[in-house]
């Protein structure tokens, strides 16, 4: 219990250090561009591949479950659309990013900690928490919603292709289903969730990386803890946000 309270206190103290005025905006901008590439752009391909296939799988499974002559075909598209926009793209893709981006952040910062690179920054007069973590937070909070928007589009595209080629649903029916009773707030809800999840992934992983102890074994242990903790935090936050925004 005490350990948990101490960890929470340490996490919020790290956040307080992170959101301090940067020493030099230009250097932070350079770091931000590097992080956009490392944490955002490099994730596009994995998000794209997973989204197309999961969109197709969701559609096929929904079509199987709604295979009834009394249920119109466009209902498959409605169900697939809601699954992809409400849950798969924002939550599942964020969980995948927690694994990819979270472990990257934790292991990078952890390696910097054990090799005294963080100490070197501190001795130079640079606030290491701010310089190393703030650009990562900005990069993921800005770029993850773009990734999720791509995921939504490709998920629905995967569903469309699967519906046409594998489930004998007419393309016109599927497109009609995608448009029918569309609630645009659901997209906003997904993007709001994504921003919160991006913040959780980055800050929780950064916390575990920043406070690594015990050399390279410690880096491995904390990278795993970062992924597990941010995944659990995402699920809890998902429940709270769903209750607040849709409940």
């Amino acid at each position, binding site marked *: 219990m005490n350990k948990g309270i101490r960890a929470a206190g340490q996490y919020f103290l790290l956040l307080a250090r992170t959101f301090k005025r940067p*020493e*030099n905006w*230009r*250097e932070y901008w350079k770091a931000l561009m*590097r992080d956009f590439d490392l944490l955002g752009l490099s994730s596009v391909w994995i998000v794209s591949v997973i989204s197309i296939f999961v969109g197709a799988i969701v559609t096929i499974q929904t079509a199987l479950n709604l295979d009834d002559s009394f249920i119109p075909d466009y209902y498959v598209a409605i169900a697939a659309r809601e699954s992809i926009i409400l849950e798969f793209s924002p939550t599942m893709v964020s969980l995948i990013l927690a694994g990819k981006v979270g472990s990257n952040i934790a292991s990078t910062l952890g*390696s910097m900690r054990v*090799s*005294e*690179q963080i*100490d*070197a920054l*501190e*001795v*130079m*007069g*640079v606030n290491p928490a701010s310089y190393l973590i703030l650009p990562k937070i900005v990069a993921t909070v800005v770029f993850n919603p773009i990734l999720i928007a791509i995921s939504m589009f490709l998920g629905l595209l995967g569903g469309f292709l699967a519906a046409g080629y594998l489930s004998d649903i007419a393309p016109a029916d599927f497109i009609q289903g995608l448009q029918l009773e569309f609630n645009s707030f659901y997209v906003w809800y997904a993007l709001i969730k994504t921003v919160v999840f991006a913040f959780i992934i980055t800050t929780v992983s950064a916390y575990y990386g920043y406070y690594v102890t015990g050399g390279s074994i410690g880096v491995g242990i904390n990278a795993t803890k970062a992924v597990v903790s941010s995944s659990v935090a995402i699920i809890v936050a998902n429940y709270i946000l769903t209750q607040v925004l849709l409940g």
Partner: protein
Amino acid sequence: MIEVNNLHKAFGEQEVLKGISAKFYKGKTNLIIGQSGSGKTVFLKSLVGLHEIDKGEIYYDDRRLAEMDRDAKTALRTEMGMVFQGNALFDSLTIEENITFSLGMFSKMSTSEKRDRANFCLNRVELENVNNKFPAELSGGMQKRVALARAIVMNPKYLFCDEPNSGLDPKTAIVIDQLIQELTKEYNMTTIINTHDMNSVMEIGDQVIYIKFGKLAWQGSSEEILTTDNEDINDFVYSSELFKKIKKKL
């Protein structure tokens, strides 16, 4: 000058520094020696503010570290250079980017001015044609030189080196020692070096401080170290057969 009074530092129940007081003078290479685990690194890291001290005072030319606000500490740190035991070069940056990092953060130099300064520092540590290489592409000795070049890029008043010879062959170790000594005289820096290498002590030690179990056990020059009657320092120095032979000849 750096002055330390009654420095105490503990980690939990374990008291590592037990009231060390010392003065480190400008233009001198001040060596801190002691066995592994004696508290040398904790002492050095406490001096630069990486460890918060529990008790005592640290003065940088009459400026008390504990009284400084964030901006004053940042300003002080731009006057410091530090060579870490494992070099602590930034893996993701090239050698030139490593060296010019603090210039980018704290100066308004143009890119070409920064490059000139990096080349000057690399030249000073006798390295060339490494600007665009990454740290992992260099040997241990070359990395140490780059770390030294990075430490002097801001013309520091205070230079700290934590085991600068660790992992180096004896010949390269002497070259690094001599470089540190030359730079100390050239820039009139207050240099503090942690070491347990007796060659370094004899080669460049203007002032030597021996720490034992977190306490200052002996203080003197590198000449005095061979002739002192202090049992603690003799136990440490003459644990090597070579120095025992030297002692007999003396």
